[in-house]
């Protein structure tokens, strides 16, 4: 069982961004994708989630043998796919609690109601472990949140929705070291044999706290190098130009 991406090509407004990306994340593993700006990392995240601005022109994605690309955005979510956004969106007027409740309710079989008492209990305890103030339950989703608060909120949503595969798109950007640790603890606590992660990051720093099983390097819409966690350190040391040079040589 895995999230298997095969020869994925995708474009936006006629510009091809993903140019034959292949990658497989077996359940239970954490993979990291690193790469320079403009390599297509965030596009990959949006294509997997089903953003309508992007057209897939070739290739496919199987999530536990289900055709992910054939599903609507919300179906993908309910089937177990989660994206932690690089820029979480503000939703005025909708409280965090109501939003999470609606998202969980959408996963219930028709005619069944989410138990409100259990829900609040679970949400409160998860907020506490992520260091999120209880006041946030009543505040509108991400509205007026600091960058760090938004990212913590993404992790809160992830823990509540308990996805099978989660993609974290530059969750570390804009985080101070304390917030980074909290976010990493949240992810580590969710690590399990039944769950796969794809961590998209520009910097190696996050991977000090979330130790990946596999590191991929992405450039120009493709995976150009794959290795163990030490690859991240090598990249940090030598910079992305090193990969580019290797590519040119190859």
């Amino acid at each position: 069982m895995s999230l298997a991406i095969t020869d994925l090509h995708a474009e936006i407004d006629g510009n091809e961004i993903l140019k034959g990306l292949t990658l497989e994340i077996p359940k239970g593993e954490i993979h990291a994708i690193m790469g320079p700006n403009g390599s297509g990392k965030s596009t990959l995240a949006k294509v997997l989630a089903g953003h309508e601005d992007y057209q897939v022109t070739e290739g496919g994605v199987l999530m536990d043998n289900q055709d992910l690309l054939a599903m609507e955005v919300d179906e993908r979510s309910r089937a177990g796919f989660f994206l932690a956004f690089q820029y979480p969106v503000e939703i005025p007027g909708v409280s965090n609690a109501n939003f999470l409740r609606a998202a969980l309710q959408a996963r219930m079989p028709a005619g069944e109601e989410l138990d409100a008492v259990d829900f609040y209990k679970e949400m409160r305890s998860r907020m506490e472990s992520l260091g999120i103030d209880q006041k946030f339950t009543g505040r509108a989703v991400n509205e007026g949140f600091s960058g760090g608060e938004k990212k913590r909120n993404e992790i809160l949503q992830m823990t509540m929705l308990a996805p099978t595969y989660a993609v974290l798109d530059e969750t570390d950007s804009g985080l101070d070291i304390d917030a980074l640790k909290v976010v990493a603890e949240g992810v580590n606590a969710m690590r399990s044999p039944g769950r796969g992660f794809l961590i998209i990051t520009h910097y190696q720093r996050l991977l000090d706290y979330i130790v990946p099983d596999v590191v991929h390097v992405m450039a120009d819409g493709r995976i150009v190098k794959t290795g163990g966690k030490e690859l991240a350190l090598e990249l940090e040391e030598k910079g992305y130009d090193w990969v580019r040079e290797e590519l040119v040589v190859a």
Partner: protein
Amino acid sequence: MNEESRTVTTIAQEKDTLGDFSFPEHHKFDAGYGLSESTIDYICDVKGEPDWVRAFRKKALGIFEKKPMPTHWATQDLENIDFDKIRYYLSDGEKPKRSWDEVPDDVKETFERLGIPEQERAFLAGVEAQFDSEAAYSNVKDAVAEQGVIFVNSTEGLKEHEEIFRPWFGKVIPTSDNKFSALNSAVFSGGSFIYVPPGVKVAHPLQAYFRINSENFGQFERTLIIVDEGAELTYMEGCTAPKFETSTLHSAVVELVAMKDAKLQYITVQNWSSNVFNLVTKRGIAHQNAEVRWIDCNIGSRLTMKYPGVVMKEPGARGEVVSIALANDGQHQDTGAKMVHAADNTTSNVVSKSISVGEGRATYRGLVQIPKHLKGCVNNTECDALLINSKSKTETYPAISVKGNKHATQHEASVSQVSEEQIFYMQQRGLSEAEAMSLSVNGFVNDLVREFPMEYSVELKRLIDLEMEGSVG
């Protein structure tokens, strides 16, 4: 139940909630198409009205014919109303029944599918149910009637209670107020007449339900509510019509009178189908320390023009308009409020929230008048608009005329948008597009919905959900 039959039931229930069903017509009285003096004579004869009413109607017809369409400020769409293709009076000639068992089967089934008898048992003090031009059912609970509360239709009001009815009828909203108040005055039928005696506080709401069942028809109910000194009342109205091929006209006049220290709250949850022209005039007079409050929810219709008003006639009077308007594709909600301060130390409050979806259009028009010779008047106006997708339109036309410097007025307006990125974000968390839109809309109106009696807030949420489902197709 298998998936297919479940879907069929759900669709049937939704159609019921939206009122999209009808029964074959079998009217004993039909004034025919078009409007002339003979239409009015026909209505007066069928209803057996006194001469003063006939004279009142005919005078109104003259005013209606003379007044131009207000297209110099309002939408050109008004020109699409063809007054010659409307039937102005349709009824089966039956008196309203006091028991649902006596109501004809098709009418009874209509109201059962709309949930009226059920609501009546659960939380209402009395119900009037109008089917086309006349009430089919009208009943007020014994305990309320014993307190001297009168709750009848307008015909019965003007015939049986002329001494209370006539002094106020047409006084809050003069016939010549606008073209459609004149039209209503010419051909009105149905609507409620309510009188609450001094000191009587009616604990549960009275409700009227207005149902259009016939195509090419105009419904012109006329409501007059008088709440005497120190008395209190909450009145609620609901309205629906099936989706017909041709347009339908609904043009009501509602006059409210709150005597000294009285409190009157008028709640509307309107859910017209998208071919209804809904052109309604609503106004209340608040006497000393009295309060008139309009809570107005406008969902559906092709065009709604409605600006509930309060004239604060004596010191200490308070007026309030709380309104929610939802304009979906092809709909125009042109709504607002009129606050006329006519005495010292009067207070008015307007909170308006509009939602435009797709190509839906929402317009807010507000009028606040505080003349120079008064002191201590306060007005607070807040209007917020929510746009769902970029094609939506919203316009705000506030007209605040405050003279003199011993007053406090405040006006706040905001426009926010539910963007594709917000919908995408919510969908990524597992909500369908319709659920995501509903959640945004409900979040936007949430603080106003809390003002509603619980039963109605649940109903309103359900209507918003259905509207959003419909808008995604």
